[in-house]
């Protein structure tokens, strides 16, 4: 059952990523990326990281991608122009990439470490203990980082008007 879920979510994630590359309009790429993120949140649930899965949806799919969608709408981004795909890429590059990917899959899939180590369920309380005790300093640093990012974004995107 877990295998079935894993392959379904992995297929959705890879399909979303391929769609991100192949779509012409940025808004469709953004929607594909949202699909990838939700599929990854499902994979995190399978791996027992429930809190991170919820945080991924709240922060990544629910806030960062909303920001992307806003900017695409505000800037009225249009479709990309068609260019001629380089023939070297199409005839040599893509097959090589496919061979590389197949080799990667073959070599690492046989490497498989067996069953995963048991995790404490739910992982929220131990995660909070780690975050607020051992990693308190990086946690406070990230809050300063976010403050700096807010200031930077507001100052950069402000429309330059003359003060009257």
């Amino acid at each position, binding site marked *: 059952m*877990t*295998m079935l879920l*894993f392959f379904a979510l992995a297929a959705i994630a*890879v399909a979303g*990523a391929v769609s*991100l*590359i192949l779509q012409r309009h*940025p808004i469709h*790429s*953004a929607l594909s*990326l949202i699909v*990838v993120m939700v599929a*990854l949140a499902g*994979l*995190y649930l399978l*791996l*027992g*990281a429930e*809190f*991170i899965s919820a*945080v*991924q949806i709240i*922060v*990544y799919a629910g806030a*960062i991608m909303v*920001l*992307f969608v806003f*900017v695409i709408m505000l*800037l009225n*981004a249009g479709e*990309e122009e068609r*260019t001629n795909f380089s023939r070297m*890429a199409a005839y040599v590059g893509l097959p090589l990439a496919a061979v590389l990917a197949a080799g*990667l899959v073959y070599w*690492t*899939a*046989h*490497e*498989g*470490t*067996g*069953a*995963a*180590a*048991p*995790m404490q369920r739910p*992982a929220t309380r*131990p*995660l909070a203990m*780690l*975050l607020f005790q051992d990693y308190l300093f990086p946690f406070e640093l*990230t809050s300063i*980082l*976010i403050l700096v*990012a807010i200031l*930077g*974004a*507001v100052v*950069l*995107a402000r429309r330059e008007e003359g003060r009257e």
Partner: protein
Amino acid sequence: MVPVSYYVVLSALLFGLGVIGFLFKRNIITMFMAIELMLNAVNLAFIAFSRALGQLQGQVFVFFVIVVAAAEAAVGLAIVILIARNRKSLNIERVDLLKL
């Protein structure tokens, strides 16, 4: 039970697709989204290894990666708005000179 290597392969695939997207697309916002895809692939690898080793440090690191990605997306998109305002185009091939 799904072996950890499956997750690592999926993460590598997604990362590779992100690299392809970054190299081949010409819209700045789409390139930015390919960067976010790469970050997500790395997060998946972190959590898979955190599960394999039974430690929670991987999840803590993913937490920080998500926060840093949020900050970076905010500032990066503000810069993109400025570029679009000054050069009137979102095509990366028009942003190759310092001169406007």
